[in-house]
């Protein structure tokens, strides 16, 4: 088990700079998730850690060892590819042992390792089959088996679940988490699914346009996103961004005013923690789950709740919750409601907004204030 240090890493393909100074540090045993939209350079970063792409600038260390120019086979890593990359002409057993055979591990030891891994992943009955005769989920397990059979310093996963159907994906997610608990290896896990990242990772690196936007614990990334990109990327439905003006409410406490129905504005008192904001114009970020139907009891229990009236334009029941779309000035604001108190289309609802969870962003730098 060892740590992973990435410092000022850059990568260019010809004139195009794909990675622009990446800094990530993973402690031994940590589970790091790399998330970001398609094309942001996640796979490239992973390939560079694996040694499959050259480093243009910067350094990669596994443990204390600088590995910039070490061949993939000498980096002591194991990788699961998005396409699984199982050798199609070999049986599952041969797929799993190919690496050990290449390294000259004697047969009894290989057999022992296959037995251990196939029991762990419950793929014993599949050992004699070829990848073409397996289902997607089984292939995924075999690909995991091929990585687990060795005892590497580092595990790399490139979107290992993205080819599975929704239910299997959730199951495998849980299994990967259990597996990591059991094996405890330092892991870098690429995904563009933010739920996967939230559930699995000890820390998340959110990437965008070749840069790490934020590298922190999942809850911190979710609650205190470093900028509007991270705020919008993590969470579904996405965070609402409402242009607002900073001022004071009738009690003289700091507040923001937002446009609501028609031409009217509503003052929302800010949470006590928020102070010293110098800019006048800000963007108020509110997650859909912090918008709900207002009631005096709720307000009594949680004084940080602000009250807003808004017409309901559309509702989408999903079963567990109902998504409501309300009009705030010329914006559409999304809220997640308990189906029992779901808004009705056309109704003008009185909303409660939990301001203790609201974020304020600078409209120009897009950074969290």
């Amino acid at each position, binding site marked *: 088990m060892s740590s992973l240090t990435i410092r000022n890493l850059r990568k260019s393909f010809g004139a195009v700079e794909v990675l622009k100074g990446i800094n990530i540090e993973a402690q031994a045993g940590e589970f790091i998730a790399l998330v970001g939209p398609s094309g942001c350079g996640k796979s490239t970063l992973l*390939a560079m850690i*694996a*040694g*499959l792409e050259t480093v243009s600038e910067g350094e990669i260390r596994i443990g204390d060892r600088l590995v910039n120019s070490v*061949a*993939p*086979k000498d980096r002591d*890593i*194991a*990788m699961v*590819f*998005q*396409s699984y*990359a199982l*050798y*199609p*002409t*070999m049986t599952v057993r041969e797929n799993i042992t*190919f*690496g050990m055979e*290449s*390294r000259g591990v004697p047969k009894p030891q290989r057999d022992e390792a296959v037995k251990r891994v196939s029991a762990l992943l419950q793929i014993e009955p599949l050992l004699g089959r070829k990848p*073409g*005769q397996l289902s997607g989920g089984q292939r995924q397990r075999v690909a995991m088996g*091929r990585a687990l059979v060795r005892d590497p310093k580092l595990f790399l996963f490139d979107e290992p679940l993205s080819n599975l159907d929704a239910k299997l994906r959730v199951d495998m997610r849980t299994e990967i988490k259990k597996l990591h608990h059991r094996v405890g290896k330092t892991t870098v896990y690429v995904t563009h699914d933010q739920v996967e990242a939230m559930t699995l990772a000890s820390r998340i690196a959110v990437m965008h346009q070749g840069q790490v936007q934020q590298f922190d614990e999942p809850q911190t990334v979710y609650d205190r996103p470093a900028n509007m990109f991270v705020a919008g990327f993590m969470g579904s439905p996405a965070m609402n961004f409402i242009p607002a003006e900073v001022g004071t409410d009738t009690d003289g406490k700091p507040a923001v005013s937002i446009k609501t129905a028609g031409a009217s504005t509503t003052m929302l008192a800010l949470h006590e923690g928020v102070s010293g904001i110098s800019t006048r114009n800000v963007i108020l970020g509110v997650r859909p789950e912090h918008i709900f139907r207002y009631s005096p009891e709720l307000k009594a229990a949680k004084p940080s709740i602000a009250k807003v009236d808004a017409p309901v334009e559309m509702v989408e029941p999903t079963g567990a919750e109902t998504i409501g779309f309300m009009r705030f000035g010329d914006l559409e604001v999304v809220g997640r409601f308990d189906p029992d108190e779901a808004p009705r289309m056309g109704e003008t609802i009185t909303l409660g907004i939990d301001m203790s969870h609201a974020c304020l962003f600078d409209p120009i730098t897009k950074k969290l204030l």
Partner: protein
Amino acid sequence: MSSIDTDVGRRTGQANPGPSWRERLTKALPIFVLVPSLAASFVYIFVFTSWTLYISLSNSSLLPSYGFVGLDNYASLWSNRRWNIAYSNLFFFSAFYIVGAMAIGLALAILIDQRVRGEAMWRTIFLYPLAVSFIVTGTVWSWLYNPVDGIQMLVRSLGWTNFNFALASDRNTAIYAIIITGIWQSSGFAMALFLAGLRSVDQDLIKAAQIDGASTFRTYRKVILPVIAPIFLAVAVIQIQFAIKTFDLVAALTRGGPGISTTFPAIYVYDLMFQRGQIGEGAAAAMMMLAALAVVLVPYSFYVVWRHRKESRHG
């Protein structure tokens, strides 16, 4: 289906007009397009093959005649030394030609696959011989092999006056001259197919093998080449039918000589039919060539069908 259609028609109180002439035309179009080529193939393959088979059992000489003589023509064919040489030449040539062209083609493909600079240029150079007809290849190489003004003469003029290179003029080695020329002509073609195969291999497989610590040689042998195994078979089958038809190359290069050392079945058939007026025996020889092809192609087509079934069964 149609009963449902009429049902709906009755219920909605409208007459069901049936398919329009346009729809009917659309349905019939594939048949119209395919019929001429199917008919032509049928005539050329089955009718003419059956006819040749019948002629090979008849007493035809200069012109076809239909007196049945059983296997006489075959017996006379196989008692002829020249035919025996031709038939064994065919197998000797085919074996070396196919293995040689595939080995060199594969080697070239693997070299080019290492992302060499000027790849397109190399590909064109190696593929170029295929654009030249066998007649031209044969003629050019016959000049090269010619002791008086070919390679021998060139090397001697450079100072090695004892140099001997008369591959094509020695009855024991002339067949090798043909093999070498054939390989030169078609290894580029094998290369092109292999290269396309190598390029179609999922790059992630190669990366996985790299991480697994496999050497380049092991990666090719264990991962890449097994994946493109079907291409080996396809190349081999195409080369085999090139080999069995070999006629123009030999005709231009050695004309079957020296003596009868490089006679090939196709040359022999041509001789019998059009030079010596023995159509019956010529047809028998042609049937033997067909048999040689069938020995290869029938198992191959069974294999293809079997594999197709297997694949569709596993989705």
